[in-house]
């Protein structure tokens, strides 16, 4: 194994001196996992994710992980990491686009079983005719799986969010899977400066014995007990137990808020919150919007920017408060359905303020000029 020193999450995230590396998003995944003290990673190829898990395989060969292999399919991989997580080890995998959908049944299963799996979703279109290009449509499907969801703007976010996801996921009062999402190609295949902690530092190991459910290691109490699917019966008490169980997943998402505040330093980042018009967006659309907002402000327009970092838990109170003083809220997105716009409309008091779009999809890029044109219309 590689020689590394365990440090506190706080030291690794906020105190350790960082070195800048000129790397792609896929390489940022590798650098995060190198420092994450992961026991097991399982790969399966899907564009644009394939390279990231290939690179995780490279650091397995260097001794940074205890085990690594390629699964038989996306569904198999997600089932295999579930089994490993139930056994009490820290696991990691990644997928994207059609791979996400092929594995989909496992995501609410992870959440229901309280498995602190971290999975990176490097998103792409889901469509016929087949597309491999950037699109965030799969995030719409993931919103109600019970998983926590973070959305990276760039490779730096991706590196930081993956590492922090393990710590948030494994809190005993949270103990839920975390999906760290990044826009495929725009992040995965783009090289940029990423500040990383020294490679000889790593997170503390996962403590499965603080989990809210028994570890299935056949030794811990209650010995030799399955995490039973308890209710296959048709009676009221079975339904009530299922309902209470599902409520507990929602409760665990709520409990995650304080840890997202602590480690991601808030569920949102806000620039010019006092502005009359706010652009609210996530992922790489934040970068495009930031350019548009900068130009608009140079032209004297009263415009601000809200970067949504955490989608689950959703920044309900933050968005509601910001929306109160804003005249208009613009929600640009990289998908055709406008799932973020729906989320924003669900929490603001006056939905008529919310302008969905501009939106592009199917692999199209979003020129900042298109966002700027929307800003001008709304500021007119």
């Amino acid at each position, binding site marked *: 194994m590689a020689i590394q020193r365990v440090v506190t999450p706080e030291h690794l995230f906020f105190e350790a001196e960082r070195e800048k590396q000129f790397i792609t998003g896929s390489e940022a995944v590798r650098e995060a996992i190198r420092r994450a003290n992961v026991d097991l990673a399982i790969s399966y190829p899907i564009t644009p994710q394939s390279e990231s898990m290939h690179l995780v395989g490279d650091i397995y060969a260097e001794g940074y992980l205890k085990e690594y292999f390629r699964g038989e399919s996306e569904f198999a991989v997600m089932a295999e990491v579930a089994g490993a997580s139930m056994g009490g080890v820290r696991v990691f995998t990644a997928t994207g686009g059609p791979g996400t959908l092929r594995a989909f049944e496992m995501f609410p299963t992870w959440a229901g079983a309280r498995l602190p799996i971290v999975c990176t979703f490097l998103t792409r279109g889901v469509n016929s005719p087949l597309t491999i290009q950037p699109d965030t449509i799969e995030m719409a499907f993931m919103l109600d799986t019970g998983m926590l969801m973070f959305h990276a703007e760039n490779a730096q976010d991706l590196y930081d969010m993956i590492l922090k996801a393990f710590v948030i996921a494994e809190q*005993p009062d949270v103990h839920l899977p975390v999906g760290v999402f990044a826009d495929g190609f725009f992040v995965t295949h783009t090289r940029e400066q990423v500040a990383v902690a020294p490679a000889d530092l790593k997170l503390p190991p996962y403590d499965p014995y603080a989990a809210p459910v028994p570890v299935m290691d056949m030794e811990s109490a209650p*010995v030799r*007990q399955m995490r039973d699917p308890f209710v296959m*019966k048709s009676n009221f008490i079975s339904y009530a137990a299922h309902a209470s169980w599902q409520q507990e997943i929602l409760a665990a998402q709520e409990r995650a808020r304080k840890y997202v505040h602590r480690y991601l330093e808030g569920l949102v980042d806000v620039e010019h919150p006092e502005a009359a018009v706010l652009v609210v967006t996530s992922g790489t659309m934040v970068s495009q919007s930031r350019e548009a907002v900068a130009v608009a402000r140079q032209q004297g327009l009263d415009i601000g920017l809200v970067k949504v970092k955490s989608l689950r838990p959703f920044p309900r109170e933050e968005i509601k408060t910001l929306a109160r003083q804003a005249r208009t809220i613009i929600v640009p997105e990289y998908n055709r359905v406008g799932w973020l716009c729906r989320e924003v409309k669900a929490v603001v008091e006056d939905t008529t303020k919310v302008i969905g779009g501009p939106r592009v999809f199917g692999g199209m890029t979003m020129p900042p000029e298109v966002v700027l044109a929307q800003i001008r219309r709304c500021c007119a």
Partner: protein
Amino acid sequence: MTASEYRVLPGPEGYLPPAAACMGVTLPEPGEALVEGKIVPEEDALQRIAEKLLAARNPVFFPGPLVLWAWREGVAEKAKAVLELVEAAGARVIPMPDYRPKYPMINPAVEINPNHPNLTIWHNRIDVGVFVGVHCHYANVALKIIRGGTDCYTIALCGEMGHEDAMITLRSVDTAKLRRLTEAVKALAQAGLPRAAGEHGRR
């Protein structure tokens, strides 16, 4: 975060009561506890637990797997501390030995199950129930069902962060904290708190 208006009180609260966490109730930080959905100093909660136990007609402890099996060092001592507390409170013990569903049903006279805890509460007419050593997920599942369908006053002595769905919860409960609670119960009993008539002739 805004303070919650929601109170975590004995039920029956209704057909499907919400998770208290989703109603804005947050877990206590170290040194704090939750009483009926409000954050209080831990010492206050110790006193409230002592009062509730001594005033109860039929208090029952529900020890779970984490204190029923000596699965790691220190657990046997903690279990002993639980028993001392049970005796000080004049309570009974009905264990939650595991979490598996049992069909057609459990024997509610001898055990409690997280999937239908109300059966044990009803059968034994338990007015104060204390969870200790139950894995957090299963405690939360059970506590909501109890609040929904019974009038039992629930107390959770949690080794981790606590339980919003209990009427009183202590967090980070170890052997020392159990003994502090036992002392609080003994002190209050000596002070002569009037006790309810026990259903099972325990006093």
